[in-house]
C-alpha cells in the first residue's frame, strides 16, 4: 500500500465520519462545522486526483465564503431544531434498513470488478509543471462554452428568485426622514380647539 492509498483511506474515513456527523449532531453550529470538515477532506481527495484548481476553489469558495455565511445565518436565526429532530429515532430503524440495502446494491454494481484497474485503465499521471487551471480554463471556454453559459443563467435565476421572494416593497419599520423632520412647524402637528367645558365646576351648582 503506497502513501497515496493510505492518504486516500485516511481522508475517505474522515469524510464519511464528518458527513455522518453533519446529519446526526444536535447543535446546528457543530453540523455546519462538520460540513466544513467534509468539504476540506473532499478537497484533499481532489488534490490526490490531481484536480488542484477545483480543490482550492472548494476550500476558498465553500469553506471560506459559503460556510461562513451559513454559520452566520445559523447563529442569527436561532432555529429550534428539537421539533425537526423529533422523528429521528422513530425513523432510524427503517432508515438504516433502507440505506443498508441501497449500500449493498451499490456495492454489487459499483465495485472493483467493474471499475477496478482491469476494467478501466489507470489515468495518465501528469508532470509537476502540468497546469490543471489552464486545462480547465481551455475546455470551459471552448468545448463547454454552452453549459458554462447555462450555468450563468442558473445563477441569474437564483438571484432573481432570492430577491423576488425576500424583497418587501413596503418597509415594515417606522423611521424618521430627517429632511421632513426639520421643516416641521407647530401648526403641522398641533391643532388648538376651543370647546366649552364638559363638566360644571364643582361647587357652583
Amino acid at each position, binding site marked *: 500500500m503506497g502513501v497515496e492509498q493510505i492518504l486516500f483511506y485516511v481522508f475517505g474515513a474522515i469524510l464519511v465520519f464528518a458527513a455522518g456527523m453533519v446529519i446526526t449532531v444536535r447543535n446546528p453550529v457543530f453540523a455546519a462545522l462538520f460540513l466544513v470538515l467534509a468539504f476540506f477532506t473532499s478537497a484533499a481527495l481532489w488534490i490526490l486526483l490531481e484536480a488542484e484548481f477545483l480543490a482550492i476553489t472548494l476550500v476558498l469558495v465553500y469553506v471560506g465564503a459559503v460556510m461562513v455565511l451559513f454559520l452566520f445565518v445559523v447563529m442569527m436565526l436561532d432555529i429550534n431544531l428539537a421539533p425537526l429532530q423529533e422523528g429521528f429515532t422513530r425513523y432510524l430503524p427503517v432508515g438504516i434498513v433502507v440505506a443498508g440495502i441501497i449500500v449493498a*446494491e*451499490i456495492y*454489487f*454494481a*459499483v465495485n472493483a*470488478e*467493474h*471499475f477496478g484497474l482491469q*476494467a*478501466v485503465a489507470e489515468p495518465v499521471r501528469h508532470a509537476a509543471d502540468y497546469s490543471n487551471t489552464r486545462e480547465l480554463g*481551455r*475546455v470551459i471556454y*471552448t*468545448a*463547454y*462554452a*454552452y*453549459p458554462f*453559459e*447555462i*450555468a450563468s*443563467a*442558473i445563477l*441569474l*435565476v*437564483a438571484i*432573481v*428568485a432570492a*430577491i*423576488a*421572494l425576500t424583497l418587501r416593497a413596503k418597509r415594515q419599520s417606522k423611521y424618521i426622514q430627517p429632511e421632513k423632520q426639520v421643516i416641521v412647524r407647530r401648526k403641522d402637528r398641533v391643532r388648538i380647539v376651543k370647546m366649552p367645558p364638559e363638566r360644571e365646576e364643582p361647587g357652583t351648582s
Partner: protein
Amino acid sequence: MANSQVPNFFLALPEMWLLLAGCLVLVIDAFGRGKDRNTAYLLSQLTLAVAAVITVAMATDIRIFAFNDSYVSDMMGTVLKTFIYLVTAVVFIYSRDYLRERGLYQGEFFVLALFAVLGMMIMVSAHSFLTIYLGLELLSLSLYAMVALKRDDSDATEAAMKYFVLGALASGMLLYGMSIIYGVTGTLDVGQVAQRLASASEANNLVLAFAVVFVIVGLAFKLGAVPFHMWIPDVYHGAPTPVTLFVGTAPKIAAFAMIMRLLVEGLGDLHAHWRDILIVLSVLSMGIGNIVAIAQTNLKRMLAYSTISHVGFLLLGILSGTENGYASSMFYTLVYAVMGAGGFGMILMLSRSGFEADKIEDFKGLNDRSPWYAFMMLILMFSMAGVPPTLGFYAKLSVIQSLVDVGLVWLAVLAVVFSIIGAFYYLRMVKLMYFDKPVETAPLRANLDLRAVISVNALSVLALGLYPSALMNLCIVALTQP
C-alpha cells in the same frame, strides 16, 4: 486542437434570444417602477412570439449539432419548442387577471417564466447529459421560485418547500445515474453514449442496469409518475393557480423531450432494462392517479391526480420502443399540454378576487350561469376522459395502438380499464355543471382576451379531434427524421 474552434453559435439563436430578452424584461421592469406591470407582460409575449418565429425559420430537415455536439437542432426540437412558446403565451393570457387581483402581477412572474422556458428549450435541444441536467435545473429553479411567489401564503410556501426538497433529491438521483453511465462509457455526449453502449461488453450490463434505475427514478420524480408522485397534488394545490397552470403544462413537453434524449437516444440499447421499469411505473400511475382522483373535492387536486394518470399513458408510448410509440407519446404530451391549459384556464376564468373557484362544487350549475363556457368545459373534460370525437380520444387510441403493435395486449387492456375508471370523475364534472343547481350565481366577468383564448383552446381540442392526422403527422415527421 479540434475543440478550440469557435462553436456554431448561430444555431442556438432561439436560446440566445430568450436569454437576452429575459434579461431585458428584468431590467426594464426593475427600472420602470409603476403600478402597472403591463410592459413586462407585453414584452414577455413579444419575446415568445419572436422566439417562435426564429425557431420556425431555422427549422431544418437534417439534424445539426453545435457546441461540441452538446446542442442539437432537429425537427422534434422545433415542434416541441414551438408548442412550449404557444402554451406559455396562453398561460400568460390566462394568468393576467388572477395575478392582478391578488397583487402577484409582478415582473418577476414573467421573468421567471421566461427563464423556465429557456430551461425547457435547453432540455429539448440538449444532446449531452450535462446540458440536459443544466436545462432541468434552470427550469426547476425557476419553478420553485414561482410556486413560492405568493410568499405570505402558508400553503404556497409549503408546496414550494416540498417541491424544492423532492426536486433536489430527484436531481441527485439523476446525477448519480448519469455519473455511473459516464464511468462505464467515458463520455457525456448522448450520441457517443449510444455508440459505446452498442459495443459495450456483457460484464457492464449489471452496472448499466443499475445506472438506468437511478436515471429513471430521477425522471419519474420530475414527471410525477407513481410511486414518485407525492409532490404533485400538494404543489398543484398549494401554488397560485396560474403557476399550477404553468407547472402542469409546458414542463411536461420538456420532460418528454428529456426522456427521448436520455432513454431513447442515449440508452436505447438498454431498452430491455428500462422497458420493464416503465411498465411498472405506468401501470401504477394510471391506477393510483385515476382511482385517487375520484376522492378529490378540490379541482386542482383532481387535475393533479389526472396529470399523474396521463403521465402513465405518456410512458406507455415510450416503453413500446417503436417509432410509432414515440410519435404517439409525443402526440399525447402535446395534447395533454393543450387540454391541461384549458382545464386550469377554466378555474382561472371562474375565479375572482377572494374566490379561487378551485372546488369542484364551484362548477355546479355552470350551464345556468354561462351555457357557452359550460360547453367549453364539457369539451375539455370529454377530451381528458378520452371520449370521441375529441383530441384526447385519438391520443389515447394511438398510444394503445402502439402497445398492441408490440404485443403488449394485456397492458393495452389495462390502460383501457383505467381510462374507464378515470372517465367517472371527468363525467361527474359534466353532471355537476349541467344537472345541479348553481351555488354561485355571480355572472362571469373575465376579460375578453381570456374568454376568446379559452374558447379557441377548447374548440381546437374539438376541431383537431375531428381532424387529428395533421398533428399526428407532424409528430411522426418530427421523430422519423434521419
